[in-house]
């Protein structure tokens, strides 16, 4: 089936414009972050790394970067471990109400972040977890873990359960069979979930806005504070670094997707 040539030109033109709309702001941020002056105009009329130098030497930006990565790494480890375990359990178990359980575990995905943030703010204030990195990690884990559960559950659909029976018949205890037979087979799904968990934590802003004191500011939180204060290209240097991270996440998730697809064909 082919469209009318004119329709095709119009469709492709419209698509190109929409893609331009989606990408142009990101490109502009990257270009402006190298601006030699405080003025944020295009074209920037020069090239300079002074805003990156500013970013790397200002105490609050360094702290925010460190906090962001500490929280994101801890969140990824916790979410990947708990999410993978739960997904495997959901796949193995033979009990009623499994669909309800999956819905409950993935509910944070469809709940507005502001409601989650308000709820956690109330609850964490009672037990004194607001204003601590541990509280931030737990909060981020709750919103990141559904992605791990969904990704691992999806990969488990392609796992041949006979392999576990074979392992059992060879005398492997269930835990050993899971670790040595199942996990190596489903790792692309686990890794994809981990990438999503990392990205979710690194980008999370609304919950952090309520949970983090000045000592726990993450990069998005510090960006927001700085934008409110005064707009400098240092913010754009931070934005560019976060953008670079998201490009890496995209790359990683695509590599994992291709690997999973190849595995499925093999």
């Amino acid at each position, binding site marked *: 089936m082919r469209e009318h040539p004119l329709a095709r030109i119009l469709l492709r033109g419209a698509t190109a414009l929409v893609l331009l*709309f989606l990408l142009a702001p990101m490109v502009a941020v990257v270009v402006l972050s190298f601006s030699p002056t405080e003025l*944020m*105009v295009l074209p920037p009329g020069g090239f300079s790394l002074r805003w990156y130098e500013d970013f790397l030497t200002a105490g609050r930006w360094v702290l925010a970067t460190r906090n962001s990565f500490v929280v994101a790494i801890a969140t990824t480890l916790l979410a990947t471990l708990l999410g993978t375990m739960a997904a495997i359990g959901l796949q193995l*178990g033979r009990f009623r109400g499994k669909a309800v359980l999956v819905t409950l575990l993935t509910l944070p995905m469809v709940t507005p972040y*502001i409601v989650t943030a308000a709820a*956690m703010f109330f609850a964490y204030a009672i037990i004194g977890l607001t204003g601590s990195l541990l509280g931030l990690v737990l909060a981020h884990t709750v919103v990141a873990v559904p992605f791990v559960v969904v990704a691992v559950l999806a990969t488990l659909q392609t796992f041949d359960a006979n392999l576990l029976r074979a392992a059992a018949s060879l005398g492997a205890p269930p835990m050993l069979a899971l670790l040595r037979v199942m996990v190596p087979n489903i790792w692309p799904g686990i890794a994809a979930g981990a990438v999503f968990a990392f990205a979710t934590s690194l980008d999370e802003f609304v919950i952090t806005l309520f949970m983090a004191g000045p000592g726990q500011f993450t990069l998005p939180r510090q960006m927001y504070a700085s934008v409110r204060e005064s707009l400098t290209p240092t913010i754009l240097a931070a934005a560019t670094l976060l953008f670079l991270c998201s490009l890496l996440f995209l790359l990683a998730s695509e590599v994992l997707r291709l690997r999973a697809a190849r595995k499925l064909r093999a």
Partner: protein
Amino acid sequence: MRRTNWLAALLIAPLLLLILGSFLVPVGLTLFRAVQDREVAQALPETSAILAAWDGQGLPPEAAFAAVARELGAALEARRIGDVAQRMNFARTGMRSTLLRTARAAERLRAPYAASLVALDARWGQAETWLLLRSAGGPVTSLYLLRAMDFTQTPDGGVVQAPTDERLYRTLFLRTFGISLLVTAICVLLAYPVAYTIARLRAPWSSIALTLVLIPFWSSVLVRTTAWFVLLQREGPVNGALLGMGLLEAPAQVIGTRIAVVLALVHVLLPFAILPMHSVMTRLDATYLRAAASLGANGMQRFLRVWLPLSLPGVLAGGAMVFLLAVGMYTAPALVGGDRDQMVAWFIANFLNRDVNWGMAAALSAYLLAMTGAIVALARILTGGMVGARG
């Protein structure tokens, strides 16, 4: 089999406990906070008990006057007066000053309290004040849920519209709904041709175009909103370009307007519309199109009668996703919008952080949650209906 189930339960339990303790129970507590009423009963227990026994006719007995004077004074010393004052002031503006003045004067007041309290503040001579105090005795109240819909309760228990200058929230919900609907409509209209074109492109162009959609999808909402904040400045690139092309006479103030909010929201949410549509369209069975062609359908007919209906589940999924994310959005309006463009999330944040009125934050959260729940349910019913219709 039983052993497997034990193992499964063991594997699920840690995550279930985390979600339960850190999400489900807190959300439940939040919903409860929308109706909870304990400030007055906690700080003024004796007053509350006396008023609960009072028949509500005329003014309460002298014992109530004496109790309120003593307990307000004690609450001031225990630094608990703030909560009571805020709770009562929210029910009726002006109560804060009455309560604070009485608390500060409590030591100087002498019996008969009915006379000395009224002399201190005429409000104590009004039956309404006492009825308000009685209705605040807890343990639950409809005050916040009603106020979040611009209603208020009269002292005798009837529900009426809130005073005009305090009416705000129905407009707020309508605005949130309107902005979300507009953003969803724009996203769906923009996303459909893009998803269609990408689905029909040949490799490697289809992958390249899809990657260009995935780049913004993976990058942070705050980064993208900040980008718009920079681009739309008065001296920013967008104004510069429009001035340069002669489309504008003077730089336009876009930050702080509804246009900026809609623009940023569309930019943030558009990938969420494109991706589900694209995924449905690439899996769409091309034999239907060939069958339609062999039956003599022209291009337009093939699109309208075959492609469009088959791709509707994707449109619905994308649209529902965009709407769901839009109604709860805090970041984009907070950054690029003005005071009159803020949505429900911004008010929840303000009640939490600035006003410290947790009852209102909880009530607004409850309505927002109900709204998103309705969207999810509606999307499920509609997609279910579609799948069912095709057998």
